[in-house]
């Protein structure tokens, strides 16, 4: 070879080799054999190492995706026919590193060889056997610090056992602001301001002095009328002028009286409100501090929300982990799509294909889940991150019958990303005769509650359109056995709750879950509310009665003086009304005449 001929050292003088002539000068015929040997060696090395490379690639990609160790016992690639078998896949639960979220005994599938050359992994049928959930691990599968989850229930109800003790009224009134006192104070200030304003207005309105002046003018006119024709003619003009002045003053006083009456009516309404305000305070504080129907509803919700919320959060967390694989990261650039590969460098540009196919597609996956109850088998169709290319959603359907502790189970649904702009997913789960065992409802020290056993029928319908989550759950629990860890020294309420829960034989629960994947709310209704109300009815009535009586007395004591002051102020304002009424009466008397005061009525004009 040429390389072998370069045997001289930089220090050695160049030799004059005998060079081959013609084509032999450039062609190295043994090189063909060398190429064949090198190619075969490379292929052999690849064949020896490929299983290990596949294993490493799956473990690395899986670990990165899940956030905890993904391990594979063995991978086996066959060339004729082209297929892959994966054995012993373990996916660690990131929240519990000593537990596998999923363990799969065997995954095997055949690939379309021609499409694989086109860098498309097309699997017509995949078999997944021995799927198990929540299996224990021998070593921890943690890979480092996990980011806290952002999925959370909005306004999760905390389990609080209502107390049988009557709350201390003095303590409550010391920390609570009474709205009745504030209302009385504000109203009293307003009444005083109104009173001041009207006092000023009264000073400007015609008063007794003004009416006396009118009387003097009238008397003078009457005496002038007795002084002949000239006096009579002159008196007529003066009488008209006096009448006009009195009418104007009467108008002023009447208008002021109307305004005052209107204001007084509004203030009287507020007075009524202020008088009733202590009762409002009483109701508010009683509902807040005493055992109420609302408190019981919260307690029953908290009992069910706990275990339900945990399961919803787990489901949504895994759903969020799947998101990156449900849609391709393609970006349009002109007529072509630029796709950043999940691994590797650079970007891949996609062009229009004559027969478009996704980069990865599993047409049918037959899955056998080896649950503790027995075998649940199902089919997943069209597994691909490129649904728009395929034009069909991923669908799944699982069913199991006559299982241990479970009469039947049916799960179906679809993950639809055909239109990437409006993704929508749906799932329906029907469970019949599920024997529920040792489900903790409350681990609160005051009253631990467990469902020891129950036979459950459950129907769940969940949908996710974009970010909007909408799910409905209906569950019926029969042959229920509830155990409670009530302490011997517990109060009457705790004992009554424990007794009521222990007596439950059947239970109906309905839940509506709405919101988004990261922030959702659960609206629960169950007949547990009714059970607790009945159980605690007597305790509740007695406790509320005593508490209400004490609270009423205390509030009345606190509100008595402000309300008395308020009434006094209101009385002062009402006095202004009397004054105005008197002035109207006086002015009206002057215009009508008659009586001992004499008025225009007593003045006889000649025409």
């Amino acid at each position, binding site marked *: 070879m040429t390389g072998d001929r*370069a045997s001289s050292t930089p220090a050695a003088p160049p030799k004059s*080799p005998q060079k081959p002539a013609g084509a032999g*000068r450039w062609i190295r015929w043994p*090189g063909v054999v060398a*190429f064949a040997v090198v190619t075969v060696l490379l292929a052999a090395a690849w064949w020896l190492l490929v299983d290990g490379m596949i294993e490493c690639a799956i473990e690395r990609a899986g670990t990165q995706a899940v956030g905890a160790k993904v391990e594979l016992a063995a991978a086996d690639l066959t060339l004729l026919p082209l297929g892959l078998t994966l054995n012993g896949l373990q996916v660690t639960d990131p929240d519990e590193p000593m537990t596998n979220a999923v363990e799969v005994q065997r995954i095997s599938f055949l690939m379309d060889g021609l499409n694989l*050359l086109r860098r498309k992994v097309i699997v017509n049928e995949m078999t997944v056997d021995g799927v198990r959930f929540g299996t224990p691990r021998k070593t921890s599968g943690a890979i480092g610090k996990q980011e806290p989850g952002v999925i959370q229930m909005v306004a999760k109800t905390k389990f609080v056992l209502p107390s049988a003790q009557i709350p201390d009224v003095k303590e409550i009134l010391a920390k609570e602001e009474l709205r009745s006192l504030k209302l009385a104070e504000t109203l009293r200030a307003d009444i005083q301001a109104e009173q001041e304003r009207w006092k000023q207005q009264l000073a400007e309105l015609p008063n007794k002095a003004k009416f006396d002046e009118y009387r003097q003018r009238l008397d003078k006119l009457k005496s002038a009328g007795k002084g002949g024709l000239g006096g009579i003619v002159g008196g007529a003009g003066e009488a008209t002028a006096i009448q006009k002045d009195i009418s104007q003053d009467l108008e002023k006083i009447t208008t002021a009286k109307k305004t005052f009456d209107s204001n007084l009516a509004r203030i009287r309404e507020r007075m009524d409100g202020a008088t009733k305000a202590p009762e409002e305070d009483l109701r508010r504080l009683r509902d807040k501090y005493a055992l109420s129907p609302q408190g019981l509803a919260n307690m029953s919700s908290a009992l069910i929300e706990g275990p339900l919320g945990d399961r919803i959060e787990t489901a949504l967390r895994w759903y969020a982990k799947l998101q990156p694989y449900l849609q391709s990261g393609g970006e349009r650039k002109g007529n*072509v799509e630029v796709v950043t590969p999940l691994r590797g460098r650079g970007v891949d540009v*996609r062009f229009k294909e*004559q027969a478009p196919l996704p980069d990865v597609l599993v047409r049918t996956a037959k899955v056998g889940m080896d649950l503790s109850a027995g075998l649940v088998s199902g089919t997943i169709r069209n597994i691909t991150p490129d649904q728009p290319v395929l034009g069909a959603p991923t669908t799944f359907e699982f069913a199991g019958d006559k299982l241990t502790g479970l009469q039947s189970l049916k799960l179906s649904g679809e993950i639809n990303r055909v239109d990437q702009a409006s993704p929508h997913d749906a799932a329906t789960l029907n469970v019949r005769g599920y024997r529920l065992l040792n489900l903790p409802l409350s681990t609160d020290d005051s009253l631990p509650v467990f469902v020891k056993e129950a036979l459950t029928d459950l129907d769940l319908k969940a949908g996710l359109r974009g970010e909007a989550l909408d799910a409905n759950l209906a569950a019926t629990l029969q042959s229920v056995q509830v155990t409670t860890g009530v302490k011997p020294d517990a109060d009457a309420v705790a004992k009554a709750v424990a007794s009521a829960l222990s007596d439950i034989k059947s239970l109906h629960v309905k839940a509506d879950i709405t919101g988004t994947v990261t922030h959702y709310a659960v609206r629960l209704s169950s007949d547990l509310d009714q059970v607790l109300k009945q159980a605690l009815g007597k305790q509740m009535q007695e406790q509320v009665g005593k508490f209400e009586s004490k609270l009423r007395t205390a509030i009345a004591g606190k509100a008595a003086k402000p309300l008395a002051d308020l009434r006094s102020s209101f009385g002062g304002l009402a006095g202004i009304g009397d004054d105005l009424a008197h002035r109207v009466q006086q002015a009206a008397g002057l215009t009508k005449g008659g009586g001992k005061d004499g008025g225009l009525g007593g003045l006889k004009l000649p025409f």
Partner: protein
Amino acid sequence: MIRAVYKLLQVIGSETEPGQISLGFAFALIAGFTPLVSLHNLLLLFLILVLRVNLSAFFLGLAFFSGVAYLLDPVFHRVGLAVLTAGPLEGLWTTLYNSTLWRLEGFNNSIVMGSLIVSLLLFVPFYLVSNRLILKYREHFLAWVQKTKLVHVLNILRYGAGS
């Protein structure tokens, strides 16, 4: 490093045809710049083994250009993406995209396309310049280099004090 310099001096100072050495370097330019596991590099391997290309020059060049390629990857990406998304070429790329052989080549990756274009454009100029430089070296510098202390030291390191 010393070994590589010694090898380089040995190769370009040898009796080998300058064209064979230059071709080794030029092929190394393609193999080094483009991702190693590519279909075109299999073809290149065939050419290297069948044509009388200096293998030492090729392997020296491959080591050098593979290192340089890491620095040039952003340039390759930009060139490749610009070429792949150029409107007038869309028809050509679409035809190639529907061919199994070209899909296997992975031409639609920006770095594969960019590095292949850059290395193919540089191939002929690099071959000619390299050829010219080897001839100039042998004509003007080889005798001088052989007398330098550096070469003396390298000879001692390579063959021992008796050389």
